[in-house]
């Protein structure tokens, strides 16, 4: 039955702030200026001043609250249900950690405050470093990188500097070794970060089991110009690289170093440590494994952890501990690291995320950290088992914290991964990661994390099976999904052809 409406549902048609804006509305009040006013022209010559802020909206406070509250309801989120994005580790975001990050003594602390007046913050960073070193088995830590890719860049640049220091440079200042090996299954940031650090990328094949091809690795190492390897472990197929030690040995024998992408550490914390596998340097995603909120795309934090050998190359400043008088600890920022690659960011990293990650580690406790890892892997296994008969599993190695399927069995009827993903939305779930890794056709990478209960996992499995059935009996329903959202599939191709990247007054409609 169709309903005619005078106004479409109010929470379904909230306009842009610019369209809502009405000249003269005001959402703020400042204290009156409490100093005698200087004439504008004395403050600044007219040619350096602007006349106005054309187009910036004018709204009352209730307008603002209503606007952002309404559009927020168009988002799916962890607190609503399963968010099984493979490789993203969408786990529960503790409110306690949010509260900790907002404690005034942290939130109002200026980064350039004298060290002696910021000892609490430095201690937080120092303690977090200690715990991350223990968790990764790698003693050298920098919390400066702002995200995973940033940590990757930091790590591979350290490899670059280490090699240059060790091998010296070839005549003409060219680096002797400039090949970075990266599996074809790697995340896009890996090659991008390697490139940014001046390496040329060579791709390693994966085996039919979804593991790094040792043969191919040996071949590539033979060339002699190998600077290192960037490996994700468990890899992006959710499989643990069981030859990891051998792989590391090969690279080391070839004179290179091993970088591990730590995005999948949620499968390992408390169970195995990269440092014990022969890895030289790794980044962690605090916004994955350590549950700092994704925030719709950030902020993140990508600490870099390395061996003692690489430590001199970590970014400055380092947070260190000195024993002051009657040796109580005094925390300090150490800049005197001649071999350091330098800064990768102003100040000291995303401190707010450091607080949350430390709170996560202390709330779980050492046994709780392992418990979370076990629960995460168990949940992935539960889904793997539940969907094994329904969807194609490209590799039969047992999955760790995430499980990979493809759309192979569904494509006959023209239903592809994208359609399955969109249809999942109608069942109340966020889709899994799709078309990644690139090495399998129509990849569906599912990571439930430890934060979901049995019953909801089963609901997800039932939904996937039902969609598989629909794909055969009622393909159109799947091909046209989602059916329950405020808008249907958007024409992304058209959007990219003629990109509209900002609102312009021309487009002004009637606001709410």
């Amino acid at each position, binding site marked *: 039955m169709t309903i005619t409406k005078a106004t479409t549902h109010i929470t379904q048609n909230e306009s842009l702030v610019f369209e809502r804006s009405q000249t003269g509305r005001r959402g703020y009040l400042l204290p009156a200026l409490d100093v005698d006013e200087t004439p504008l022209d004395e403050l600044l010559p007219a040619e350096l001043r602007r006349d106005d802020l054309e187009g910036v909206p004018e709204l009352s406070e209730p307008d603002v609250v209503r606007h952002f509250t309404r559009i927020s309801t168009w988002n799916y989120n962890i607190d609503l249900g399963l968010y099984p994005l493979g490789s993203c580790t969408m786990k529960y975001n503790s409110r306690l950690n949010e509260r900790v990050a907002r404690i005034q003594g942290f939130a109002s602390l200026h980064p350039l405050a004298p060290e002696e007046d910021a000892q609490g913050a430095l201690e937080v960073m120092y303690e977090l470093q200690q715990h991350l070193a223990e968790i990764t088995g790698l003693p050298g830590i920098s919390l400066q990188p702002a995200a995973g890719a940033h940590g990757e860049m930091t790590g591979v640049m350290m490899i670059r500097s280490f090699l240059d220091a060790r091998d010296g440079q070839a005549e003409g200042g060219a680096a002797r070794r400039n090949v970075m090996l990266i599996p074809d299954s790697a995340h896009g940031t890996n090659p991008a970060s390697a490139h940014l650090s001046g390496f040329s990328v060579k791709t390693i094949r994966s085996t039919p089991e979804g593991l790094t091809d040792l043969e191919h690795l040996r071949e590539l190492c033979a060339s002699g110009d190998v600077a290192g390897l960037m490996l994700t472990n468990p890899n992006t197929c959710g499989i643990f690289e069981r030859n990891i030690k051998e792989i590391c040995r090969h690279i080391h024998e070839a004179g290179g170093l091993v970088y591990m992408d730590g995005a999948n550490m949620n499968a390992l914390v408390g169970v195995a440590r990269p440092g014990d596998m022969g890895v030289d340097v790794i980044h962690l995603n605090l916004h994955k494994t350590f549950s700092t909120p994704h925030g719709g795309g950030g902020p993140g934090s990508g600490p870099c952890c390395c061996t003692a050998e690489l430590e001199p190359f970590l970014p400055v400043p380092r947070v260190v501990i000195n024993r002051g008088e009657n040796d109580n600890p005094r925390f300090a920022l150490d800049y005197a690291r001649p071999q350091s690659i330098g800064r990768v960011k102003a100040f000291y990293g995303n401190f*707010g995320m450091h607080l949350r990650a430390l709170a996560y580690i202390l709330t779980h406790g050492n046994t709780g950290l392992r418990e979370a890892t076990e629960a995460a892997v168990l949940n992935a296994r539960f889904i793997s088992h539940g969907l094994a008969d329904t969807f194609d599993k490209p590799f039969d190695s047992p999955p760790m914290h995430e499980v990979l399927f493809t759309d192979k069995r569904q494509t006959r009827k023209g239903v592809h991964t994208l359609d399955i993903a969109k249809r999942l939305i109608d069942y109340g779930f966020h889709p899994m990661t799709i078309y990644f890794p690139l090495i399998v056709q129509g990849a569906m990478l599912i990571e439930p994390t430890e934060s979901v209960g049995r019953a909801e996992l089963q609901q997800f499995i039932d939904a996937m099976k039902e969609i598989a059935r629909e794909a055969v009996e009622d393909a159109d329903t799947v091909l046209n999904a989602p059916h329950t959202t405020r808008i249907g599939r958007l024409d992304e191709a058209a959007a990219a052809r003629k990109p509209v990247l900002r609102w312009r007054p021309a487009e002004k409609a009637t606001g709410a």
Partner: protein
Amino acid sequence: MRYIPNSPEERQEMLRGLGLGSAEELFDSIPADIILSEPLRTPAALSEIELLERFETLAAKNTAARRPSFLGAGAYTHYAPTIIDSLIQRSEFFTAYTPYQPEISQGTLQAIFEFQTMVCQLTGMDVANASMYDGSTAMAEAVLMAERVTRRTRVLVSGAVHPEYMRVAETYVAHAGIELKRLEVDEETGRTSLDTAMLDASVAAVVIQSPNFFGCVEELKSFADEVHAAGALLVVVVTESASFGLLRSPGACGADIVVAEGQSFGVPLSFGGPYVGLFATREKYARQIPGRLVGVAYDKEGRRGFVLTLATREQHIRREKATSNICTNEGLIALAVTIYMTTMGRRGIQEVAAQCAQKTAYARRRIAALEGYTLPCSAPIFNEFVVRAPVEAGGLLRRLATRDNVTGGLALSRYFPERPNDFLVCVTETNKRADIDALVAGLKQS
């Protein structure tokens, strides 16, 4: 562990259902010799009560957080409307992932589109991205982009750019075949002086910060003409976004790329992060921009929506050929900035800027009048300025902190050992006249 829904008993049942005898068996694919034999040597679990006490104790050690402060230099104390934090704490915003599935991410996507638009309005540019890590990495990315656009390899950077931004740029270009050259700063004015001889055909870009690190407002327009004449790009850096409310926009001055630190717009100091980098440029360079972009798209019924677009620039498609390696950016902070700009709005952003300038002028007059203190730079300023003390600035500021309970500013010796007596004072709308008078009184005594 109270964050794990399935109880130990439930997990046992699930294991049995999978034909596994114990949790250990979940890790059979990991070689035994790299399996941890004993528990991690991290502390045992803390209850909520204990954890909060622990962090409250640590926070209390950050004595600087409780003092009136005149610190700026890349991080600024501004008023942030209360609604910002209450809105970004909605789980719909803060627990969502990057909006890869537009049908159930329109809230995030529309907010980013609004962010991009307002960044363009403030900077006077055509296109802005969804955010960079912070101002410093945004500047480094601008340098890399200038090379991509011009295919030239030398970049001239003002000596009055924030020293930490400069270091970051050096790291980013270390292996990119780009050479950074420093432009001198005029002792007397405090402004960058452009040695035209250096502006040859190898120069990809000239990078100028305004207001610069010493608080001085640069003559961007004149730079623009010379830079463009040499076929290079003008990159303008802004560390104090509040200045957008008063200063002619970089775009209006001829900038080709504008990068800024957005922290001033409602983002807590939080000891240096998370902050957010703003990145804007000209329409014609849109496809060279790093990071995510949100654009308008329509569904079959012609309903307007928003999507991540021009993804072919990005690492997940382009891999090593991407315009940047950035993936996760500063989404939630960009949202906070969006809510700030919307709440303060057209008039509020200007009023904040005006109050900063007014209070700074007052402080400057008061300090200039002090026996023994001078203000070395003559150029116009916004809300920061250098003070030259009759004594070593570090010790002076320490005395102010302990004796007068005020953080008087930043000793420039931190970055410029050759300037022992200089310190940088920043005044914002949050500094009360009484605080300024206290600072002045303290300086007088010292």
